[in-house]
């Protein structure tokens, strides 16, 4: 029997992996993928909470509804993010964050 804690564990792992990807990787595209992983980790935990959060014999559907919105928002964010990456690539010919050093302290 898979319990809520198992889902939360996976979700937490996904979030940590995504965050590690954002912090450690140097390629903007990979960082971007880490970002998506973090959002999907939240989706997973929302669905799990929703499924196991029984109120009056029914799952609490608010969480599942939120997930649909998050998927949409994440898609919008991907569109904008890729556009920004393309703009940056045209200006700099690079997708490495270490080359982003025009603006500095």
């Amino acid at each position, binding site marked *: 029997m898979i319990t809520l804690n198992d889902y*939360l564990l996976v979700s937490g792992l996904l*979030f940590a992996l*995504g*965050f590690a990807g*954002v912090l450690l990787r140097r390629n*903007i595209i990979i*960082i*971007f993928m880490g*970002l998506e992983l*973090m*959002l999907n*980790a*939240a989706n997973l*935990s*929302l669905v*799990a*909470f929703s499924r196991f*959060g029984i*109120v009056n014999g029914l799952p*609490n559907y*608010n*969480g599942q*509804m*939120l997930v649909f*919105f*998050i998927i949409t*928002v994440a898609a*919008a*964010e991907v569109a*904008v*993010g890729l*556009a*920004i*990456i393309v*703009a*940056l690539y*045209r*200006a*700099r010919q690079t997708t490495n964050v270490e080359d*982003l050093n*025009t*603006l500095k*302290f």
Partner: protein
Amino acid sequence: MNTALNLLHLLTPESILVETILVVLIAGLFKATAQKRNMLLSLTLIGGVTAGAMLIFQPHYGNIANGMAVLDPLTRFIKVVVLGLSLITAVYAVQSNIRQHFAEYLALILFTAIGMMLLAGTENLLMIFIALEMVSIPLYLLAGFLKQSSASAEASLKYFLVGGVSAAFLLFGISLIYGTTGATSLRDLAQSAPAVTRDPLFLAGLVMAIVGFGFKVAAVPFHLWAPDVYEGAPTSSAALIASGSKVAGFLILAKFLAIGLAGAAGSAASSQLQPGWLPLLAVIAAISIVVGNLAALSQSNVKRILAYSAIAQSGYMLLGLSATGGTALISVLFYVVVYALTALGAFGVVLHVEQRRGGSQLHHFEGLHQSAPGLALCMGVFMISLAGIPPLAGFFGKFYLFAGALGSASQGGNLGLLWVVAIAITFNAVSLYYYLIVLKHVFVTPATHPAEPVTRRNAATFVTGLLAVSVFAIGLYPGVLLDPLRAAAQAANRKPVTAAPVQPK
């Protein structure tokens, strides 16, 4: 069916803004002429002012789908403020160096305005997240709008990456809070939160949500994006990021904490420390004040100075938030609104200098009092107000804020927050240095640049002057802003429970 109609009724101003966006975008398709930018701006302003008028004539209270969209006097006040700030940004945009796709630029400003208005008018975690993204995503694009400039693209990317991570943190925090309490509406959350304040999952969610909000309001240690974005983004975009999104961000942070999580506040008083969000907020506030003010000292670019000043000001606002209570919220909102007006005005002056002299380094401001005496005076007003010197508005903002923080009874008697207030006042003295350095370049240092022709008046300088006058007027008569704010907050608190909700079935 009734709910949909009510929703449409409640969100009429936002709907008008959407229609304005469509009109502006269509008008932008026609052949470019010299008058086109002004024509597009007029369309935007007409739509915006209509939306503002609709806001004022709306019913006093509304609550749809369990807090998804709420309306009360305080919310309406903040909605009017963020709409006005966005429209001023649009006026700035005409004078900026955005030559291509101007209609799209205005449309994005309006999209941001819609997001901020929705954000101000919601008390539901779901809607908070979506509205926050509706603010952030257009702002990423506004920051990167100068596609040829590599600084703009870099600023946009940094803003996007940091903003995306913060959104993910906020979302994960929301999911944990939702999971442990089963609530998405802040009012429901307030009822179920006290039962789980010791639940580690709930506390983790709380911390992650505060981290997410901390990124949005640029508090230390989540501030690193701010200076780069302020410097690299087009000045009119930076002005919107500094003013409007800050007002909306602080209002929603205040609602989230004060309405939803009042039961999990804890205590930051030095004598009786209790875990909760108050001590966390107080510590973040203190670090923001210290780091922001110290880092601003060594900057040579006025936009970066403004960015670090914004970080420090965030610290002051967080300090105000950590002093919960009825009057404290008003003093925070007063401070935020005054700050937004001041920062917007300062960016107006920066915009002028940038257009005239090709940069926003300190030396570009030399001798400004000769070439544009009016703007130099405005800059003086803004800087001195930011530093918090009477009789300008910033002084009263700080005064109410610190008085509220010291007097908050919820902190276990008086003077519980004295340690943060002491830090804040000390570093406020430090901040005087860099504000006066800017003024020194404006007024004292002789111009090394070749003299330029005396400035023609234009809409942007006019608006900047207007902002300076309003900062001055609020300083002389704080009641101009404080009284409506107080009345709105009291009216919002008096909200009759039976009259408000229109529950969907």
